[in-house]
């Protein structure tokens, strides 16, 4: 089964990215793996997995998705998970407000990640996730009207 890997954290950009990744995964019947990477060893893998699971539960509760927690260098671990899962795409979030965006970390990771993997990377801007959320809401409204 094909797999899409999505790097997640608690930021709005990452939450938008996981919605896009879920949409992509659903459209091609792929499995979504949401990965949260802790940069430092704190509560080890359990906490990281908990963060990924919480983001999935909040954003795409109905998706066929798996949460994974990793500890270490963010780009290196994402590349390793993509390889391990034989992913066809890695999705990351990017906040684009110009200048020194708050999501600079995400895009820095994307640049590092691109050097470590042969899997294509899709960087989804926050606006795209918001658009997807609005589409979902309007769909829900239509359903309610029916």
């Amino acid at each position: 089964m094909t797999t899409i890997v999505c790097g997640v954290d608690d930021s709005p950009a990452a939450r938008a990215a996981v919605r896009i990744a879920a949409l992509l995964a659903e459209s091609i019947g792929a499995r979504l793996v949401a990965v949260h990477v802790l940069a430092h060893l704190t509560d080890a893998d359990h906490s990281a997995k908990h963060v990924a699971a919480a983001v999935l539960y909040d954003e795409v509760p109905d998706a066929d998705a798996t949460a994974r927690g990793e500890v270490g260098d963010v780009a290196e671990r994402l590349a390793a998970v993509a390889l391990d899962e034989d992913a066809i795409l890695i999705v990351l979030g990017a906040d684009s407000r110009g200048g020194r965006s708050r999501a600079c970390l995400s895009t820095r990771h994307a640049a590092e990640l691109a050097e470590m993997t042969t899997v294509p990377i899709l960087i989804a801007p926050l606006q795209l996730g918001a658009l997807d959320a609005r589409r979902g809401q309007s769909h829900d409204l239509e359903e309610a009207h029916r």
Partner: protein
Amino acid sequence: MTTLTSTSPPPAARGAWIDARSAAPIIAAVDDSAASRAAVDDAIGLAADLDAPLVFVHVRRGPAAMFGGPVYKRRLAKELERARRVVERAVRVADLAEVGAEAEILEGSPGRRIVEYARDRGAQLVVVGSQRRRLRRGVAHEVARTADRPVFVAARRRSDPALARAA
């Protein structure tokens, strides 16, 4: 016909985030690097699958103004020739894949100009290659950081010598 490689996502995955926007072009940033060749291949595949217009963009920085007239002109001519070669090669690859493409040569800071151009053209997607930069951030990083639309960082080919070195 597409020029997909095994590392590219399947067609449905590549088009799923976009609907009813096929008139919006895909902008692919190209230069003469190996990473750019991967971007050209992926951009052609994406354009074919999405039935979207494809525009190859090369941004040249322009010779430094400190050079005197004759040197400036010579360097400018050389830069323009290289830029033309880069975009012509990309368009030729697209032609071989039976995908229509146009090309633009811009001047300025590559990261900034690509994002501006994508915004001006209402692009649905920006495709970039990723190249290792030792002393400064790459164009892919700047585009990903500042673009207000999806950015597709092309998969590096296993034959890419930089990737082999990194491994």
